[in-house]
């Protein structure tokens, strides 16, 4: 926990410095007749971010916060595996939307999550893997008229569009 606190503060400080630099693409000073330049607001705020990161680091050295005194691991191995698995599955689902679309990605996500993480029966898993995309389709595409990305599977939906839209 102690190391994580320091690493997080350093990463956020670097990000703040990057934001400061990025803000200077627009004028950060006073422009006559126009007031503060477009970069001023984000520039001074990211300066504040950097300062608060330095403050967090200073408090880390003085061991003020509970995290900076804690010897507990930031992640124990069990939760690291679980959270890592879930995060990878989510990333894979969102990534595959570009390719096989929402209606291809959702069933795979349910099968992975319910069968391999949750160890549910195939019956339960397939009920959700099939039910969720059907409900999503009728709710978003038919009721709300919001077209969700379909990637390569787009042609499969032409008959459905003809039928419902």
């Amino acid at each position, binding site marked *: 926990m102690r190391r994580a606190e320091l690493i997080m503060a350093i990463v956020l400080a670097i990000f703040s410095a990057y934001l400061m630099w990025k803000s200077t693409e627009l004028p950060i000073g006073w422009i006559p007749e126009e007031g*503060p330049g477009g970069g001023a*607001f984000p520039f001074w705020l990211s300066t504040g*971010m950097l300062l608060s990161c330095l403050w967090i680091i200073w408090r880390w050295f003085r061991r003020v916060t509970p995290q900076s005194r804690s010897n507990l691991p930031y992640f124990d191995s069990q939760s690291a595996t679980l959270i890592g698995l879930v995060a990878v599955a989510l990333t894979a689902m969102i990534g595959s*939307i570009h390719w096989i679309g929402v209606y291809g990605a959702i069933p795979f996500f349910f099968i992975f999550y319910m069968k391999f993480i949750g160890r549910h029966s195939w019956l339960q898993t397939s009920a959700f893997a099939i039910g969720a995309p059907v409900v999503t389709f009728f709710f978003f595409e038919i009721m709300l008229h919001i077209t969700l990305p379909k990637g390569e599977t787009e042609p499969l939906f032409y008959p459905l569009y003809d039928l419902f839209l």
Partner: protein
Amino acid sequence: MEIIQLLLDGFLVALEPTNLFLVIIGCAVGLFIGAMPGLGSVNGVAILLPVTFIVPPTSAIIFLAAIYYGAMYGGAVSSIMLGIPGASTAVATTFDGRPLAVQGKADMALVAAAVASFAGGTISVILFTAFAPPLAHVALAFGSAEEFALMLLAFGTFIGLGGDDIPKTIFSILIGLVLSAVGLDVLSGQPRLIFGDIPGFFHGINFLVLAIGIYGIGEILWTIESSRGEVQVSQAVVTVRRIIDSLKQMGKSIKTVIMGSFVGYFVGLLPAAGATPGSIMAYGFAKTMSKDPDSYGKGNVDGVAAPESANNAASTGSMLPMLTLGIPGSPTTAILLGGMVIWGLEPGPRLFVDQTEFVWGLIASLYVANFFSVVLNVAFIPLFIWVLKLPFTILAPVIFVLCVVGGYAPTQDMHDVWLMLIFGVVGYLMRKLDYPMAPMVLAIVLGPLAESSLRQALLQSEGSLMVFIERPISGPIMGVALLLFLLPVFKAIKAKLTNSKGEVNAASGG
């Protein structure tokens, strides 16, 4: 009298068939979201806001306010049945709710929670109806300096009263404001903070992307980690007779309920406070005022009634500054405020003048939502118990899918879905180190208004910061904001003084 007329007109709006239907659905959805461990009103409102785009703004906010309300009722259910608060707002409900459930009096605790919530809701809506119009009237005189001062006050309450680590709170506020500045500069129209020249950043970062990331994905990751252990559901026998008996017993708790409602309402008005500290304070007051404080924590019905009346009252209270001043009183109302902007309304005091139907329709719908929540709550108790037995490995993927689709819907851009995932994961990692997330969400919603009011005020004053101090309304607000910013410093000095005194005493005594 004018208020009563406006309220009656509001009822005509709230009781239109579509709106009435949405209130009932909203209450039911809210009850379930509130009852699920880890999810509260803010998660429900953030995840479901995108689906409200098909209905007119009035119906949309009525639906979301009903979810907000329902979730306050529902939070008590898992606090009592599982011993885990359904939302942070129901933490205090576990103190006595859980012992009651263990003693086999779960139904009594559930009924007490429902009745107290109803009373808290009703009292606070009446207070709301009385206070909102005069406050909105005063706020009409506000200029850009006052607007900016109010926002500073909102951020000041997080620092002074939020109770989180100070530098981390400041960081959270500032990063929210910077993220709100991404996109096109409002005044000059030039692109700004376009990271890696990715075109998706040109339309700015939608507050919903951050809100769903943090309160959807981040929250579920948090719950997955913290609830690995098996959850034990209490058994509850529910019969009409037992419910009537419990209702009769509630008569003794009237005083506690009224006290809880007032505490909750006034704490709810403060931007950083809201329902969680409101309910905990109400619990504390009830215990101090009680003739039998020792029975608290061991299954006293008043210990359920106090926090439950307070959290419902606070949810109404937090809507007052949102509607009259355009400053949200809680993360949930911050998201509602962001929703108003998407629906094409301009939040702030003009709302009461320009959008009377919207404002009074919403207020009247709170009365209606309150009624339906209590009815549905009691009717759904058996169903809740069944749903709460659903394993989290089924709920989690369902919510993840809702987040992804909900994050895509507003802008229909996959860029935002990726951004949401990043915010969710990074937010979760930061939250593990006690970085508070609510100030960030509030800041991204208030950011655009804060920037434009600051720049306009400075432009009018030709760069002099005195404009914020000299004006009769903004001056005192700035003063209070400054006090709040300095409050932690005073506290630290006081702590040091008492510490050194203690040492002196110890030295002289030894």
